[in-house]
């Protein structure tokens, strides 16, 4: 919306409506930010995991693989240099460790970028909502 509205010219019911609109926009943006943060945490954690466990010294070592979140089976680590990565829309790609590390860094950076883009917008909406509240109080 590119139009400027002078809040003081609005009546209380209109202000309430505007306030509610900002409320829901803020809620939506906040929850999106949380999802982004969650995704970033996951990418960082995958990267760390990768670097810690997929080393040549661990070649052949026995591991417990989760079949489900509560069922594990014993297995051996074969080929600590290759991993299979889900890149989206049901496509999986085989990468070596350094390529996989780059992949997670790429994803993590992208998500960070998105968060940085929306943070100021979220701030602005918070401030505006606060302004609306203040104007509403003068009209009570």
């Amino acid at each position, binding site marked *: 919306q590119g139009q400027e509205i002078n809040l003081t010219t609005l009546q209380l019911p209109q202000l309430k409506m505007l306030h509610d609109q900002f409320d829901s926009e803020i809620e939506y943006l906040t929850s999106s930010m949380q999802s982004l943060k969650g995704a970033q945490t996951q990418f960082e954690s995958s990267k760390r995991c990768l670097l810690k466990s997929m080393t040549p010294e661990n070649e052949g070592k026995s591991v417990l693989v989760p079949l489900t979140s509560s069922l594990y089976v014993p297995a051996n680590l074969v080929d600590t240099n290759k991993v*299979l990565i889900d*890149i*989206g*829309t*049901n*496509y*999986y*790609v*085989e*990468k070596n460790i350094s390529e996989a590390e780059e*992949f997670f860094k790429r994803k993590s950076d992208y998500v960070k970028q998105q968060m940085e883009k929306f943070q100021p917008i979220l701030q602005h909406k918070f401030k505006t909502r606060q302004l609306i509240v203040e104007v509403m109080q003068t009209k009570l």
Partner: protein
Amino acid sequence: KLGPYINMGAVDAQVRLELQKEFDEIQKVQKEIQKSAELQKKLDSQLNQNTVVKDELEFLEPESNVYKLTGPVLVKQDLGEAKGTVSKRIEYISAEIKRQETLVADLEKQLNKHKESVSKIQAKATAVAH
């Protein structure tokens, strides 16, 4: 939301019927617009995901192993083929999005037409009631 602004009791049954018809149409069109908006949201998300995959595929060396999960099976794909499939998906989704945008523009025109009809009928009825 449009509501009757005149004393309906004083109005002809015929007019009441016409107004009801227009209100029903308005509701119908609004539902269609809503449906399209939801569909567009889904399509946008799909477009995003597919674009991400396309970009990732570009990062790969030609001998890279690519797999597609179909049902429970990870089937090996040729890199070129995978790129082609994803590009086609992107084309298809983009076309669908455009189609929905055109549809909504059309529906909004219809909506305005019905709103105008309602105003006309109400104006006429008020004139008659006096």
